């Protein structure tokens, strides 16, 4: 089972390498040391949260802002972890969940939920390995090479992370009007924070939280039960 998990994880690992490469570049260009970028990736294993996290640090935001922004941005993992808990088999509990819960990401979750009726702990463990290595190595390579690479290339790879975000939103919005509505509302509020001078005082971390909570609450009020259509 562990071998099957490792095999299923390899495509995710390759994808993570290129995306975390761009995270490494982004972190270094925001004034972080290469080992700081590496530690962030090793300890968090998440794209959106890390991106927001280094934004908060670079802007010298408060610890509360850091905690709240991480909580809101990663709240989706709580939902995934809920679904996983329903599908994990009898032996996948207690200490195993405590340890392997660290490895829940959007892609790992999606692949794990796709395999059979129950999820075995050995399979889930195997599944995490390649993505973790890819994420860590990609960050390291990006952070180290980012310093010596020509700016044309750094510039181009800097958009890769946004590319991944777009690749998650667009297919979901295409399939589901409610998701399209929520994403559009959130983007509109985000533009408001960005372009209207009155909102200058609000840090980007809190701006993301406010956008996400307002748009999702509106979505839940108008289209309850349509999030997974």
């Amino acid at each position: 089972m562990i071998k099957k998990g490792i095999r299923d994880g390899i495509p995710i690992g390759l994808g993570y390498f290129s995306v975390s490469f761009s995270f490494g570049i982004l972190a270094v260009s925001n004034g972080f040391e290469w080992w700081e970028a590496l530690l962030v990736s090793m300890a968090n294993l998440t794209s959106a949260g890390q991106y927001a996290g280094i934004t908060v640090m670079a802007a010298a935001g408060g610890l509360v802002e850091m905690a709240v922004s991480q909580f809101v941005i990663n709240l989706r993992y709580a939902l995934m972890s809920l679904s996983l808990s329903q599908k994990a088999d009898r032996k996948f509990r207690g200490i195993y969940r405590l340890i392997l819960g660290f490895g829940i990401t959007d892609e790992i979750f999606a692949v794990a939920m796709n395999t059979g009726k129950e999820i075995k702990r050995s399979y889930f463990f195997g599944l995490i390995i390649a993505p973790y290595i890819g994420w860590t190595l990609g960050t390291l390579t990006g952070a180290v090479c980012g310093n010596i690479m020509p700016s044309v290339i750094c510039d181009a790879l800097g958009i890769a992370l946004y590319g991944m975000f777009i690749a998650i939103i667009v297919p979901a919005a295409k399939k589901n009007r409610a998701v399209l509505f929520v994403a559009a509302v959130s983007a509109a509020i985000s533009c408001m924070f960005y372009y209207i001078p009155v909102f200058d005082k609000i840090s980007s971390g809190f701006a993301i939280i406010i956008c996400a909570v307002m748009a999702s609450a509106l979505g839940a009020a108008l289209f309850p039960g349509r999030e997974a259509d």
Partner: protein
Amino acid sequence: MDSYEFLLYLGVMAGVTYLVRAVPFVLVKNKIENKYVRSFLGYIPYAVLAAMTIPGVFYSTRYFLSAVCGFVTAVLLAYFGKSLITVALSASLAVFVSGIVIDCF
């Protein structure tokens, strides 16, 4: 930011991220029944990603115009169901090429 401060922030960041993942996984055995709460949680990832992408993506490269090229490329490929990695790397390629073209003028 010095190393001590960095580690303090990192600790808070990693701690919250870990707890959000692990606590429901370990503790919750029943499904959430409230449909409003379920919907709210379900919409959160898309709302977060949309707010982070727009308008940030347009200022993520040296030229606004090449960022627009990358953005349009990503949206089109994503619309036609290409994988995460294809979309991400194609957007990079579009920024790379358009950046060089703009440099020429």
